[in-house]
Each structure stands twice: as structure tokens, then as C-alpha cells.
């Protein structure tokens, strides 16, 4: 009998602490599958950030470094520059990457750091209980926009992939979603490519993953997946924003 499906080796067999219905588990699994498929678990250092995934080092089987809030791209820069033959990724949320860590992500990208960033955008601060994120949609109710996000008071949501794709140092930027199976498969392909871009030292690579937060959105997981498709994708269109040709493309 052959095994057709199993837990990726790069994902530790341990119960996740995330809320029921949270999509971090799916995204963790996709990253771990890619580490397995590329055979790089032992050559990878991941950087955990601050937010719900602060302890993702409990789940990823590769070496991990926990970074201060927003500083993961700077920490990853230090690691990558010290270990030129290793693979380095950051796993960051929207508050971490697009608010407190904006300077770090923009400059890591513009320097063309050979790192891969998994950017999970669920339009809200999850861990601190549902405050407005830089990616919160106009009109969206959060604990700090109790009457909905109003542009005249709170500004506009940031489109990270579009912004970073203007920088020469960014080699690859794609936005994906994990709201249904076809999109999850596309997300996996994007994450894999983002690691391959690093392996070929092309520059900075980012995959923005539209994700859900049933707890802080105040919806069931099923309704949250629908809400993502109906609301988030309009402001955050899926697609490839920056791409480079890879040697491995020719091999296919």
C-alpha cells in the first residue's frame, strides 16, 4: 500500500493553538509541504514574528528565530547575510508587516534581500482582539473602528503587493487566498515559487495570503470564507504583481 497523504516532515506533530476555523494551520502546512518538496528543511531558518503566530517555531521543524514586532525582515536580513547558503523566510501578519514593520519590509525588499516573506493578511489584529489593521477594509467594524473604518478618520487600507512590486529589489510578489481548495492549490504554487526565487538568488520574494479571522470578525468559519471572497478580493485582487524568470522554469 502506498502513502498518498501524510503530515509534512517540516511540520511538527503538535496541536495548533489557533482558534477554530483559523486558516493559519492551512498556510503553515503549505509552507511545510514546500520545505519538504524542495528538500530544504535542514537548510532553512524561519523567522517568527509578533501576533498570533509568535510561536510558529513550535510548529515548524526547521531552525527558527523569534523576532520583535515588525522586525522579522531585519532579523532575516541578519541571518541571510550570515548564512549565504541557507534559505530564510519570515512569516508575518498584517499588523506586523504593514504597520509597525513597514520600514523593515520596504527596505528588505528594496535591498533585494534573498529572503521569502509569507504575509498573512486577514484585515485585522488577531492576537490583541480585533483592532483595526493597516489592511482593514473601508467600512469594516473592528474594536478600534467600532463604527466602521472611515477614510477621513482612519485612512485607507494598504495594498502591500502592489506597493512592494514597484521596488527593483522585489523579484516576486503574488497575492493568493486560502478561502477554497482551488485557491489553496494556487497559494501552494506561489509559496513554492517564492522559495525557488530565493534559491536562485533573484531577490526579495513575497506571497500575500488573504486569510480569515472568524473570532475577531465575529463570524463562523464558513461565513468568514465567504466574506473573504465577497469583500477582500475586491480591494485586494489576486494575482502576480512581480515575477522573474527562473532557471527552474526551463526545466519543466
Amino acid at each position, binding site marked *: 500500500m502506498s502513502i498518498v497523504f501524510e503530515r509534512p516532515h517540516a511540520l511538527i506533530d503538535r496541536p495548533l493553538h489557533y482558534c477554530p476555523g483559523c486558516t493559519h494551520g492551512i498556510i503553515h502546512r503549505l509552507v511545510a509541504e514546500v520545505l519538504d518538496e524542495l528538500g530544504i528543511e535542514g537548510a532553512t*531558518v524561519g523567522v517568527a514574528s509578533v501576533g498570533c503566530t509568535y510561536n510558529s517555531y513550535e510548529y515548524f521543524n526547521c531552525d527558527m528565530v*523569534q523576532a520583535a514586532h515588525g522586525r522579522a525582515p531585519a532579523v532575516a536580513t541578519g541571518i541571510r547575510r550570515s548564512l549565504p547558503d541557507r534559505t530564510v523566510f519570515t512569516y508575518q501578519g498584517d499588523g506586523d508587516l504593514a504597520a509597525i514593520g513597514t520600514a523593515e519590509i520596504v527596505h528588505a525588499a528594496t535591498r533585494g534581500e534573498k529572503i521569502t516573506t509569507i504575509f498573512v493578511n486577514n484585515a485585522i489584529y488577531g492576537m490583541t482582539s480585533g483592532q483595526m489593521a493597516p489592511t482593514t477594509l473601508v467600512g469594516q467594524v473592528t474594536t478600534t473602528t467600532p463604527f466602521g473604518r472611515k477614510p477621513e478618520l482612519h485612512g485607507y487600507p494598504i495594498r502591500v503587493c502592489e506597493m512592494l512590486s514597484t521596488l527593483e529589489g522585489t523579484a516576486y510578489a503574488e497575492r493568493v487566498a486560502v478561502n477554497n481548495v482551488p485557491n489553496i492549490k494556487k497559494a501552494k504554487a506561489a509559496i513554492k515559487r517564492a522559495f525557488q526565487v530565493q534559491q536562485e538568488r533573484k531577490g526579495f520574494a513575497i506571497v500575500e495570503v488573504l486569510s480569515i479571522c472568524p473570532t475577531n470578525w465575529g463570524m463562523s468559519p464558513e461565513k468568514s470564507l465567504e466574506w473573504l471572497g465577497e469583500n477582500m478580493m475586491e480591494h485586494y485582487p489576486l494575482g502576480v504583481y512581480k515575477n522573474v524568470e527562473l532557471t527552474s522554469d526551463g526545466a519543466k
Partner: protein
Amino acid sequence: MGEKILMKGNEVIAEAALRAGCRHYFGYPITPQTEVAHYMARKMEEIGGTFVQAESEVAAINMVYGAASAGVRAMTSSSSPGISLKQEGISYAAGAELPVVIIDIVRCGPGLGGILPAQCDYFQMVKGGGHGDYHNIVLAPQGVQEMYELVVDAFNLADKYRNPVVVMGDGYMGQMMEAVEFRDVERIERYDKPWAACGSEMKREHNTITSIYIEADVLEAHVNHLYEKYRLIEENEVRADVFNCDGADVIIAAYGTCARVTKNVIKDAAKMGIKVGLIRPVTLWPFPKKAFEQYASVPKGILTVEMSMGQMVEDVKLAVGGRNNVYFYGRTGGNVPAQKDILAEVVKIARGEGGDLR
């Protein structure tokens, strides 16, 4: 004996780091320490090391955090306002037990303050600066030769104890030019780093570098472990230059530039029949408490001289423990206590006419 070279303090910092095996430097321009970055930018490219001009001091210290996590010797340098920004990263490095080296060439504050030399970063470096229960090891050179030696020692101590080490000099220490001899290559120690996050190669369990421990008892155990380490450091690494103290009438406590001015005050006072001793802490943390305990009964008291409004004087008072009068004389804003003014304080104290009693 090797060759003596005339060099600027900031350049010696960079050269010392390179000689200590540092191949990863991350910095951000700020006066009066920027020559460290100039030197590193050139040399690192020549020798294939890493120089990154970061987008901020915040980013620079976090790059050092990353590099140290990976197991290499890494350094950043800055000056007071920039150090304030680095405090977040220093606290994280202390919590995660990372061997990082931080250079602080101190200028006057608060706020943007000025670019002239000062010693008013004592509190932020010696007393923490960042959040949480932790200590930096803090080394204070009094000149360019000692700057070389202490920067090399900083890398050794950082690796030995897995702890942030600060080399703190007032602005003169960075800007002055003096003869330096790059001797004592045997000072460089090497430590294995089996804890580093550098890729497991699937040959060991994965390594994790972290400073977060969510459960109270677990965090308390971690902090107790840190404090056990600090106790060892206090036991083994205290350094002070004790000069002319036996039979002294007055003892001056001073470090860096103030200690050098004091050496001349000692000569002037001797001509007036007053014997002045000097206790110069070389390690500001761990503080040389025992040297002060030993001389706490000096007949006329202890005068602390600083380029600040009085920061180290608090540690002097703690060490003296109420057994004697502790006086203070300081200048700030970029001014240096003048030899004649320190002497005037010494004469007042020696004659029992008082002073700024703390």
C-alpha cells in the same frame, strides 16, 4: 612589541572588531560614531564580510540579532539617540541570550541634545534602558589603546556568557586620535555555538531562538537563569583601575575622559599636600563594588566626577553604603569638567568645606 599606529578611536573600534573575527556589521549614520561605519563599509567589501547600512537603528540592531542568532560575531554602533532606538532590540537579545556587541559613543542629551561628548547614557546602558529584568555587560575605555582591547574583550565576553556587551565611550573616545598597538592576538577566544539557528541539516533537533515564555513559572525560571548568569559575571568579570588609593585623603570615582583629567588633578593636589586616589571602573556593569567597599573609609570622602548631572554617582553611593560622604561634580551639554574645577572641589572636600553631597 608591535608597531604603533596613530588612529582615530572610531576607526580603532572597527579594526578591533575585525581582528576579533566580526565579519557582520550593521549600522546607521549618527554623529559622533559614523567613522565606524565608514571603516566597515570599505573593509568588509575588501574582505568579503557584511556591511549593511540599515534603514534605522531599530533595523540595525535587529539585523545584529539575526546574525547573532545564526552564530556569527556581529556588531552595531551608534550614539545616544540612536541607542535609545536600539533598546528594544537589546532587551530582546538579552532575553534570547544572544551574543551581540553594541558600541555607544555617547553624546549629550536629552532629546536630540547635541553632538558633543557626554557620559549621560550611563543610566540607559548600565541600568537597562530596554524593558524587563536584564543586564548588559558595559565596558568603558579611557583611550584608544584600551578601546581596542575592550572591543576584542566585548566579543569574547558576549560569546562566553551569551549576553549583550556594550562598549561605551564618551564622544572623545570615538573622535580622539592616539597611538594604538594591535597586540594580544591571543585575547581572541572562540566558543562553540551549538544553540545557533543556522540550519539543522536534519542532523539534530531544530534550534529556536526566542525571548517569549508565555507561562509565568516558565518565564520566571528563565529570568532566574539569566540572573544566575549575571551573578557569575559579577563574580568573574569585574574590572577597575585602582590608582593611588592607599593612604589617600580623597578618592575620585571617574571613568573615560573624566578619569584622564583626574590623573592630572592627582598631580596638582599632591603639590598642595593632598593625596587623591582614583577608582576608575572599567566595567560599569558589573560595577566594581568591592573597590569602593575597600576604600569606603577614606578620611575625607569620595568625589564622583562625570560628564553628566550625576548618574554613576548613584552606584558609587550604593557601593559606599552610607559609610562615607559621596560628593559629585559634573558638567554636561558637551562640557568637560576642567582640571582646575575638579581640583577646587577636591580642596573643598579635603578641607572639610563640603561640596555637592549626594
